[in-house]
């Protein structure tokens, strides 16, 4: 199957179940809200090493936030509820509590509670004040610029992580240009997150390694520098491969984001240097969600 001159592999992306929470961080102005959001989601690319995959979902106008100040909506994904709880507290405690002028609120109705200000309140050393407003409980923790206002709990919901597609191009600049285009398109969508730096990963991985300590290692079949040495999936003309990894609150969100991303790249045509679009899977053994590229592109057509 070709789309606008770009080959679409007959394969599927394999995603797995995760658990996710959404937080609203507000501040005195959009700049400080974004700083808090970026800091708390920094180093949150892959659950393998960071405990969570997190990022800014969208910027929020004052009318869309609980306290009428500018804010950002942040999504955090983890492999278990326990891990998510740990990451939420750690990241809010280190990056939002400390950030000038911020407040932190729960951003969605979910299935299970996750402590937010519940334990962070103890930073107030006994001077913290609880307020119950509209059925929700908030903590006012005295800090040097006034008060850190934080909702007591947020909630988590089941989610989908690890949706992906691979962009195979003649050169690295061409692959990067195309992927940046896809990232722009996907970031307009709500409820999805591209956790890797700038939304793009260069280290696609395979399961396992020759080193016993590692559970994942470089995706040799897609490494251009290993062509000729291993069983490569790359033809002669592929110079670089980049991956876009997508987490979403539901399977439909990931499906839509994958489609939008691939469409954005295909719109550039073969002249962009993109040769093929493929996807990462482990033969269906990793997760229960499968996104067949040709199918989801056909959905739209």
């Amino acid at each position, binding site marked *: 199957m070709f789309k606008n001159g770009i080959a679409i592999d007959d394969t599927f992306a394999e995603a797995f179940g995760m658990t996710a929470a959404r937080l609203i961080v507000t501040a005195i102005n959009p700049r400080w809200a974004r700083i808090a959001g970026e800091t708390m989601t920094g180093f949150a690319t892959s659950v393998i090493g960071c405990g969570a995959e997190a990022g800014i979902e969208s910027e929020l106008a004052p009318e869309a936030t609980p*306290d009428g100040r500018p804010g950002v909506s942040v999504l955090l994904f983890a492999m278990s509820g326990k891990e998510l709880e740990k990451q939420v507290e750690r990241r809010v405690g280190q990056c939002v509590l400390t950030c000038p002028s911020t407040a932190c609120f729960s951003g969605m109705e979910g299935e299970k509670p996750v402590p937010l200000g519940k334990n962070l309140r103890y930073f107030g050393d006994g001077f913290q004040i609880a307020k119950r407003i*509209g059925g929700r409980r908030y903590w006012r923790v005295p800090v040097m610029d*006034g008060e850190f206002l934080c909702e007591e709990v947020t909630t988590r919901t089941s989610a989908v992580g690890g949706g992906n597609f691979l962009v195979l191009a003649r050169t690295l600049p061409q692959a990067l240009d195309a992927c940046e285009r896809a990232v722009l398109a996907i970031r307009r969508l709500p409820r999805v997150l591209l956790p890797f730096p700038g939304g793009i990963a260069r280290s696609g991985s395979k399961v396992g390694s020759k080193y016993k300590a590692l559970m994942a290692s470089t995706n040799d079949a897609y490494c251009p520098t290993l062509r000729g040495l291993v069983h490569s999936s790359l033809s002669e003309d592929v110079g670089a491969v980049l991956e876009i990894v997508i987490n979403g609150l539901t399977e439909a969100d990931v499906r839509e984001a994958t489609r939008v991303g691939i469409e954005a790249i295909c719109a550039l045509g073969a002249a962009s240097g993109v040769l093929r679009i493929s996807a990462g899977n482990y033969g269906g053994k990793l997760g229960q969600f499968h996104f067949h590229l040709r199918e989801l592109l056909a959905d739209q057509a």
Partner: protein
Amino acid sequence: MTSLTLELTAPPTPRIDLAALTPDRLAGRSADAIRRLPLWVGNEEARLGDLFTVTAGDTDDILIRGDSDRLDGIGTGMGHGRIRVEGRAGAYLGRQQRGGTISVSGDTGPFAGSGMTGGSIEIGGNAGDFLGAAIPGERRGMRGGRIQVRGNAGDRVGDHQRRGLILIGGDAGDYCGSRLVAGTIVVLGRTGANLGFAMRRGTLLLTSQPRLPPTFNPNGTQEPGFLALLTRELAGLSGPFAQLQARGIRVHRWLGDLGYGGQGEVLVWT
């Protein structure tokens, strides 16, 4: 479905205890059964039908027409539904209320909302003393829910209040928020002497400068973020409380009562 309507046939001289008349207790009862309900009138027992004309209707929506300040204990322990009182109500309105809504178009007697834990009370006229307060012998007053008074309230508003929200559109009497343990009291009019006396925690939110006991320290001008949440929440109400958002969140803050830990706050809109 229409409301279950109770109309007082003659103004009573002794006090009548109406605690039995809640949606929870009347559920499933016919109009006849309701007429036969025993009520305490002073120290004598009477049948409800002897005092009220009963018109059958939805027991979850009770309408009381009486205009007597002797109808005590309306909505006691109520868990759901609605009670409307056209006219005045007596003492202990909504005592230990857990849910639902009670609205009174006129004035109420003392101890309205005493010991309530949930639901809401709306008073169109004035409230008596000890609004949302603990009754003698109890250690906690209101513990949740919301009381809204359009007119004035008497002395000792929220005495020993533990949680919940009291809104007063007019003035409050002396010792407003005395011995407050936690919760919030908003007064849009003026307040009397000894505001916040012996309060431990909680918030008194005012629009005019109070006379504070000497055991309160000024805390300067602050912008507490929770005020934005509170005024936004109140914007859904009717009357003067819906307009508070326009006042912003900048307030003068006092801390006290310093004789009792000083963790309470008095906020006055600048």
